[in-house]
């Protein structure tokens, strides 16, 4: 691995090593552009991954102090865990399940498609599916996504998904399959084929699942152009009198403050930490935080409209055997306001182990007693889905800084507010009913509805917009206010779409790295 001097003003400093930051780092490294990645958490590799839900949670999760706020149940039931994301080398790609779906065309054009929606703040993206398609293809090849782009077959169907698929068939659905997944179904790119171990979200123990931990980051480190510093928590992005960013102040693994100089800064700390860093970087010149002339930094926080539906079947299923998300149902991803909501949704088969099923079946103080215990006695007969649909941007949902409490780095603690829109409520009811109908068609004896989990899909808090007054960054993730400051993660999203965000984050990161290289070569940044 290369090492760079703190005073090297020629490097790109990338905050975060997940889907966005890790991809930008490797893409730049392959082009011969120097970068320093600041990763707040420790170094991980595949040997650190354990098949133990709580053990992995404690080892991998971002557990620094945070507050849940707003009207969602988590403000009461998950008071300090608004989001379930990773702190460490590879970021949340260590924990993602591998679902690699593309946005639909209309999902880039929500304002034009849906029109104005009361109490929502929806806008069109400044990019289209047509512009994104070549980058989706590059992302699919890079990540090894099953399907036509790579020619890699989708994964074999496991028990839990076979139950769901049969319910889909019996209810007249046609769009259900075991992919696209960024999990090798055959040996590819130096990584093995999936062995159906399960525990995908506890981190793949063999590297069959794509993560920046096993691909982008080690590949970048193998060049002479990328240094990855773990245990390095970004505190503040510094700027000069001209308003250009000049470096990133961070706390190193020993707790000492360091200032890494930079030619360009890419912020990729996920949708809570990225706006938090920009807000914490407020200065005399930028009193509302960096890149925030629009006032949109930290606003429009989106997480997907979600919940779980688990059905007890007449015979054992053993849903935990095999990949965690083993199949995807896409029949309901379209916009039809006559359903009572705007936007579409996916149903994704998702296995939970017994510990998590017991924790999330009825979270909060009421989740004990005979009804819960009897439900859990049916654990081995269950199949279930995670339902996820489009979450509309709202002004009131966002990340703000606590006015008095600070964390171990001395930074104001983030307060993460999420209140469901009526669109979310209507969609959730519809998704729950649809899922129950599918499972009842295969003979389900009981159906359990689980409320939203702490969010793993976090989006929108530094959104893209063509107009500088309505968004934080442009179509390349470049801040409207500061030319050499970029946002490289899912906080760029203008809308949430219905699908899992990672493929789009990676596609945007590949595109952004091309743009950064071009602008650096042209001496524009």
């Amino acid at each position, binding site marked *: 691995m290369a090492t760079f001097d703190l005073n090297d003003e020629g490097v790109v400093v990338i905050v975060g090593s997940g889907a966005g930051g890790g991809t930008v780092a490797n893409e730049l490294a392959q082009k011969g552009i120097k970068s320093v990645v600041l990763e707040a958490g420790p170094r991980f590799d595949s040997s650190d*991954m*354990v*098949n*133990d*839900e*709580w053990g992995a949670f404690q080892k991998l999760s971002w557990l620094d102090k945070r507050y849940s706020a707003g009207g969602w149940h988590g403000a009461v039931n998950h008071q300090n865990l608004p989001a379930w994301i990773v702190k460490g080398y590879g970021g949340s790609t260590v924990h993602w399940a591998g679902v690699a779906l593309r946005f639909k065309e209309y999902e880039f054009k929500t304002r034009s498609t849906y029109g104005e929606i009361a109490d929502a703040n929806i806008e069109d993206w400044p990019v289209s599916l047509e512009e994104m398609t070549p980058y989706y293809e590059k992302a699919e090849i890079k990540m090894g996504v*099953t*399907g*036509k782009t*790579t*020619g*890699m*077959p*989708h994964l*074999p*169907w*496991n*028990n839990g*998904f*076979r*139950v769901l*698929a*049969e319910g889909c068939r019996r209810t007249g659905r046609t769009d259900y399959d*075991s992919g696209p997944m960024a999990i090798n*179904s055959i040996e590819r790119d130096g990584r093995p084929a*999936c*062995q*159906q*171990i*399960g*525990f995908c979200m506890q981190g793949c*123990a*063999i590297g069959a699942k794509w993560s920046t931990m096993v691909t982008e980051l080690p590949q970048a480190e193998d060049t002479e152009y990328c240094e990855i510093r773990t245990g390095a928590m970004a505190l503040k992005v510094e700027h000069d009198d001209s308003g250009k960013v000049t470096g990133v102040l961070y706390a190193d693994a020993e707790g000492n403050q360091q200032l890494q100089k930079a030619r360009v800064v890419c912020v990729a700390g996920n949708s809570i930490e990225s706006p938090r860093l920009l807000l914490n970087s407020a200065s005399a010149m930028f009193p509302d935080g960096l890149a925030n002339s629009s006032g949109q930094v930290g606003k429009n926080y989106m997480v997907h409209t979600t919940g779980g539906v688990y059905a007890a*079947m*007449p*015979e*054992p*299923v*053993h849903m*935990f*055997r*095999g990949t965690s998300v083993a199949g995807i149902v896409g029949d309901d991803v379209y916009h039809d306001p006559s359903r009572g909501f705007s936007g579409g949704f996916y149903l994704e088969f998702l296995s939970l*182990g*017994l*510990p998590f*099923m*017991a*924790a999330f079946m009825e979270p909060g*103080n*009421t989740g*004990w*007693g*005979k009804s819960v215990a009897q439900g*859990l*006695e*049916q*654990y*081995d007969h269950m199949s279930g889905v995670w339902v996820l649909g489009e979450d509309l941007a709202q002004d009131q949902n966002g990340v703000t800084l606590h006015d008095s409490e600070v964390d171990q780095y001395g930074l104001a603690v983030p307060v993460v507010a999420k209140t469901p829109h009526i669109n979310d409520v209507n969609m959730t009811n519809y998704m729950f009913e649809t899922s129950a109908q599918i499972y009842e068609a*295969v*003979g389900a004896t009981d159906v359990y509805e689980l409320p939203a989990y702490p969010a793993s899909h976090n989006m929108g808090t530094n959104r893209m917009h063509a107009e500088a007054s309505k968004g934080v960054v442009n179509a390349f993730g470049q801040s409207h206010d500061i030319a050499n400051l970029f946002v490289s993660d899912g906080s760029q999203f203008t809308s949430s779409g219905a699908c899992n965000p990672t493929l789009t984050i990676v596609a945007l990161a590949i595109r952004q790295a091309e743009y950064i290289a071009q602008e650096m070569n042209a001496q524009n940044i």
Partner: protein
Amino acid sequence: MNGRLSIDVYQAIADGVSAGADADEANATALKAGLGEVVAQAQALFGSSYVDIPDDDAREGILRTFQNEGFFQGVRWAAYFGIYNNPDVWLKFGYQGSSVEHGDYIDRGFSDITFVPEGPTLEERMAQVKG
């Protein structure tokens, strides 16, 4: 569910709660006071000690009164971890726990159910992604 949990599982939970109280005076005080309230509520409603109320729904109803109190949630989470996060009892629930040390489920029943159709074969899956 494959049979009942043995009494040892519950004894271990009770022992853990007791040990927690022994180690922390504030915890012990809250637990004793809370249990005292449960006993008093049982007397008030049923004229009986809690453990002598025969109807389990009635016993659960008494506990529901106290479910937002710290002492109750302490016991509740001890029971949660002692049952649902306890590898010694997972097989009773049909949960097999850690898998990677056994290699995988690819040869251990990841697709062995018979009450719904099989998934597509490798050949079918290969054909699907061509062209």
